[in-house]
Every structure is written in C-alpha cells, then in structure tokens.
C-alpha cells in the first residue's frame, strides 16, 4: 500500500508545495482536494446531462399524444435519466464532498489510500462514456428501466453488455471510494477526535460507506447473472430453464433499498452540519443522530419487499415488509425532530446554505410521508407504478439529496476557493428552485392517485392539466440550475474574500484553516480538545 501523501512531519508550514501545473495535475493527482473537485465537477456535468434527459421527457409529457420523441426513445430517456442521476450525479457528488471534507473535518493530511482514490474517480468518466455511447448504437440505449427487470431487460439489443459493464465499473468505483472513506475515518483521525466527537457528516459517511460495501457487490452479482443469462445460456431468471424472473427483483431490491439510503444519509450529515451553524446552537441530540443513522442503515437491509408488494407474496411477507418499512419513520422522525430542536430559539440567519437546509427538512419530510403511504401494503396496490411513486422518490431525491448537495457546496465553497458566494444570486437560485421543484413534483401526486402510470410517453386526456403544470415546473427548475452553475464559476474565479471561519457560527476543524484551504493541510495532526 503506497502512502503517497505521507505527511512530512518535520515541515512546519503546510503550504510548502502547490499543485503541479497542466493537465497532468488532474490526471495523476492523489490530492484529496483535487479529487474532490474532479468528483464534484463530474457530478455537475452528469446533473446537467441527466437533467436534459428529464426535460425532454417533460416536454413530451406537456401534452397528450406523441409530439417530440418516439416511445422507444422515450423509454431510453427514462432509463438513462435514472442511471445518470443516481450513479453519475448524486453518488459522485457525495463522494466529492467526502473527499474534500472528511480529511479536513477529522484533521487528516489526505485520504488513507490516495492512489486508489485517483483510480476510483478516473473509472467514472469511462463508465459513463460507455453508458451514454449506447445512445448511438444501432437499436439505441437500454430502454427497460433502470431496474433492469428481466425478461424485458434481456431484450435490450447491442447496448446490453455496454450497460452491464458500465454498471460494473460504477460499482468498482463506489466500492473503492467506500473502502477509502472507511480506512481514512478509522485510521487517520487527529488525536482526541474520538468516534463520538466526529462531525455528523463524517459519521453518516462512515455508515454510508459500509452500506456501499455491503450492497454494491450484490448488484454486481445480479447484473452478472443477467449477462450470463443473455450470453452464456444460464437460467437464473429464465423460467424455461428452471429460473425465476421474480428472483431478480428480490436480489435487485436487496441492493436497491440500501442504495436509496446511500443517496440520502450523507445529505443528513450535511444538513446536520449546516443547521447548527446558522442557528448558532450546537446540534440537538448528537448521539441520537448517530444511533438514528445506524438504525436506518440496519433497517434498510430488511425492507426490500416493499418494492414488490404487488408481485405476489404471502400475507406474512406483506405484513413483515410493511411494518419494518414503517419502522424506518421512527429514526427518521428523530432526525427531523433534532433538526427542528436545533433551530428552536436559535439566533437564526438565512444565508443560502441555510435556506436549502430548511427546504430540505420540509420537503424531504413530504417525501417521507408519501413513503409511509406507499409502505401500507393494501394502499400500495393502488399506488404501485403510478406517478405517485414518481412524486415520492423525486421528493426525497431532488429537494432531498440534491438540495443537501447544493447546500453543502454553497456552505463549503468559500472555504475551498477563498471567495464568498454571490449571496443575492444564491438566494434567487434557491427561491426559483424551491418553487420550481414543487410545481414540478407536487401535481404528480395527484396524477398518480388518479391512476396515471409511470414510464409512459402518452396519457389519457384527463391528466393533461397537471402534466402541463408539472412540465412548466420542470423547465423553471431545470433552467434555474444555470444560476447555480454561474454562481459556482464566479465564486471560483473571484469575489469577496472569505474569512477563515467564513460563517459566523461555523464550528469544526475545517474552519481553523485559512481560506482558501492550502493544497496540503494538517501535515501535523491537530489535537482536538
């Protein structure tokens, strides 16, 4: 194991070496800050690519009938939108934030395995080049939905092996990232930084990393089975050979449900960092936050059946998955309670990161509540595969995961770049986003309850009005994100200089460093308390 960035302990200054120049810096870098930046920029690019897929989908759904794309291409867009947003935008953004922040927050000089860190990032562009190249193959990209259910997914044409290989590469990248995070947190904490003193973002990432290590190999296994079913004559999911397509759903969701917590737990950590800063109070119930996160992670392994209520399951199974799913509301409720209690009687100010954090608490809770509705097995028979499900998971993923990422970027960007963000523009971005996202997704609840199925390019006339409203919201939300892009670029290029603490109420090791953060930090570990 090469400890490339092993700290030279005799150096007194941590500004002794700047980054090398040119393209080589980014290709060969083992610096956690560079790799964090690469992850975040890659994620931003994927966010816009996945977002443009979504806008084509919403443009097609603006009116009933087929206007813009043919149904087959529409199905490719829904499939790729999901894959790009999940594996390309949300997960790499969290890994990017982890790369930047975990070493700074625990007083480590770098990630534990810097060279592997470089590798885990540079796999991603290749994985997504492979995935997106399928759009240009004869027969087009995958169109059977991101869940890849057989036998439909097995009918994918030439794109199929490309998609499977891309998913394998994304999995390898995630697993390497997760191993790195765990090794860093377990071995590189500054003296005095006990586990129960770690910032909550570090805690949530530690738990997320364990989830990744537990379930990404299962996904790798199940897509491998698809691959051998298609090309090597096995019959894992083929009834003719004694297999069972329903088994795919069990294995897939055994991965898939922990996966949705992988996409939200680090967000919980970011929100738990931002709210105390702008409420100017320590986080309420730190220990209960840690235990709540761990309980959510544990429960995520035993609830997968709630994705399959209508597939056919004995009553005992339906009840088991229904009750365990509803049980998740308890630790999640503890978290929401703690965030609100932290704000209670705090000296609150409403800078951009805080606005996003508060919107997260409110809107994520709406997504949580619709999740509880879906958890009720008998009710789920009505909601399954309707737009109600689409509304539910977009509420937890867009104003949930994506808002938490944006809150984190606005919060830490001044520390990274040394420039304050453009607050006015940030607030404008916030208000347009929060209005846009609700106009976009709230009507979809009604569409779903009225029976509109998901993943269709055309719909019955009575759904027209709500679909139009939803599409208008989509374009408002989508184009508002250009403000985010502009603001980030402007902040990198210049702006009002940031102080070391940046935000008045900010606490933690990263704020003891100068702004912008030097290229090498904590060559000598700080002592906590």
């Amino acid at each position: 194991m090469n400890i490339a960035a092993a700290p030279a302990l005799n150096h007194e200054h941590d500004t002794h070496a700047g980054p090398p120049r040119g393209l080589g810096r980014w290709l060969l870098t083992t610096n956690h800050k560079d790799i964090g930046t690469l992850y975040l920029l890659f994620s931003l690019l994927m966010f816009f690519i996945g977002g443009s897929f979504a806008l084509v989908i919403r443009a097609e759904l603006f009116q009933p009938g087929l206007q813009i794309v043919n149904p087959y291409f529409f199905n490719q867009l829904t499939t790729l939108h999901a894959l790009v947003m999940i594996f390309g935008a949300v997960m790499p953004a969290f890994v990017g934030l982890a790369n930047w922040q975990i070493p700074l927050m625990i007083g480590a000089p770098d990630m534990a395995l810097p060279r592997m860190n470089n590798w885990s990032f540079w796999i991603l562009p290749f994985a997504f080049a492979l995935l997106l190249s399928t759009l240009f193959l004869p027969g087009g990209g995958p169109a059977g939905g991101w869940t890849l259910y057989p036998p439909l997914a097995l009918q994918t044409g030439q794109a199929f092996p490309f998609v499977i290989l891309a998913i394998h590469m994304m999995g390898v990248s995630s697993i390497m990232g997760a191993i790195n995070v765990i090794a860093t947190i377990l071995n590189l904490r500054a003296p005095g930084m006990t586990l129960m003193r770690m910032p909550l973002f570090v805690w949530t990432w530690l738990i997320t990393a364990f989830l990744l290590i537990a379930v990404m190999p299962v996904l790798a296994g199940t897509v491998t089975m698809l691959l051998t079913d298609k090309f090597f004559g096995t019959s894992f999911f083929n009834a003719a050979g004694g297999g069972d397509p329903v088994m795919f759903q069990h294995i897939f969701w055994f991965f898939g449900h922990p996966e949705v917590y992988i996409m939200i737990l680090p967000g919980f950590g970011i929100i738990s960092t931002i709210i105390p800063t702008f409420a100017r109070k320590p986080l309420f119930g730190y220990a209960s936050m840690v235990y709540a996160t761990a309980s959510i992670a544990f429960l995520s392994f035993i609830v997968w059946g709630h994705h399959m209520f209508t597939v056919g399951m004995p009553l005992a199974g339906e009840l088991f998955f229904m009750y365990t799913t509803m049980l998740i509301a308890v630790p999640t409720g503890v978290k929401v309670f703690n965030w609100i209690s932290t704000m209670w009687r705090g000296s609150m100010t409403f800078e951009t990161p805080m606005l996003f954090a508060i919107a997260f608490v409110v809107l994520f809770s709406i997504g949580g509540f619709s999740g509880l509705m879906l958890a009720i097995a008998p009710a789920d028979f009505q909601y399954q595969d309707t737009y109600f499900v689409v509304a539910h998971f977009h509420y937890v993923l867009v104003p949930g995961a994506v808002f938490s990422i944006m809150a984190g970027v606005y919060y830490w960007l001044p520390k990274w770049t040394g420039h304050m963000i453009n607050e006015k523009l940030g607030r404008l971005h916030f208000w347009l986003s929060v209005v846009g996202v609700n106009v976009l997704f709230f009507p979809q609840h009604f569409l779903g309850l009225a029976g509109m199925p998901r993943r269709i390019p055309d719909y019955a006339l009575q759904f027209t009005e709500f679909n139009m409203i939803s599409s208008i919201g989509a374009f408002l939300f989508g184009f508002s994100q250009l403000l985010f892009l502009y603001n980030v670029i402007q902040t990198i290029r210049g702006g009002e200089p940031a102080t070391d603490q940046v935000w008045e109420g900010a606490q933690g090791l990263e704020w003891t460093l100068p702004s912008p953060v030097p290229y090498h930090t904590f060559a000598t570990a700080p002592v906590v308390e």
Partner: protein
Amino acid sequence: MATQATNALAVAHRRVVRRLLLVVAAMFVFGFALAPLYDVLCQITGLNGKTGGRVAVARPVAVDETRTVTVEFVASLNAGAPWEFAPKVTRMAVHPGQYYQTQYLARNLTDQRLVGQAIPSVTPGPAARHFQKVECFCFNRQAFQAGEERAMPVTFIIDPELPPEVRTVTLSYTFFKLDDAGG
C-alpha cells in the same frame, strides 16, 4: 520516527483494506448464493406459484362436495415461439378432493421436429402447494413432428386444505422451445 509512524499507518491501512475486500468478496458470493436459497425457500413454502415438476402422490381424500372452486387455465408463449398453444377449456368448476382431467392443445407451426417444455405456475401463490398435479405433460419434454398437433393431458386435484378465502385458482403454462433456452 517519522518513518516508523508511517509504517504503522501503512499496516493499519492494509488491515482495514484486507478486511473490507473480504466483505466485498463475501457479499458478491452472497448475491449468487441467493439464487439456490431462493429456490429452496420456494420449494419448502410453495410460495410464488412454483409447482415445478412435482408429482403429487395420489392419496385418498374425502371429496368436499359443499365447496366449489373455479380453476382457470391459461396458456402463454413468448414472442416468436413456433407453436400454437391453448387450453381446451378455459375454466372448470371443481370440488376439492376430486380428480379432474383436462387438456392443452399444441401445434408445431414449423416444418421441423421441435422439442418443448411447459413450465407451470399457479396463482394466487399461496394456493400453489394445494394444487396438485398427478399427471402432467409438463413433467416431460414434449416432442412434436413437423406440423404435428396434439392434445396433452393434465390430471389434478385440489387439496381440501386450500385456504377457504381462495375461490379461484389459475393454472398457467408457458411453453418453451428447448434447444433455445433464451426464448
């Protein structure tokens, strides 16, 4: 001293990485282990409508004349399958405990010899283990000469222990061409 600390750290990192890689490998294997586990679970519980090639042992049971269960017969083919395949009757009213026989008709649409296999499935899932096939064309491979048409019998009995809330049981067969498992 500096190198000593670095070495200790390298050892610690290596230990963590080795353990985590072990977990990764174990979970990858676990994913595959789920396949046989799933089959065993389905066999024990009879869930999921998997009635497979199980031959029910004919044993004397009392016929429950007071109860009538509707049995529906469904035949399906995957796209492009070279057969015609249909049940002779689509529904029957039966008494639990009594033997019944019905037939499925299949015709080879090609001008070559074909071998097929029917895979049964029963819904609702919990009824599967109470639907017992004493004799079934699905127990064996079925060979068809070019253009041959044939009726294939299935003899079944509904176990009187069928849960009382089940009033309709659907028996579905998918007929697969054997030399091309991919369907």
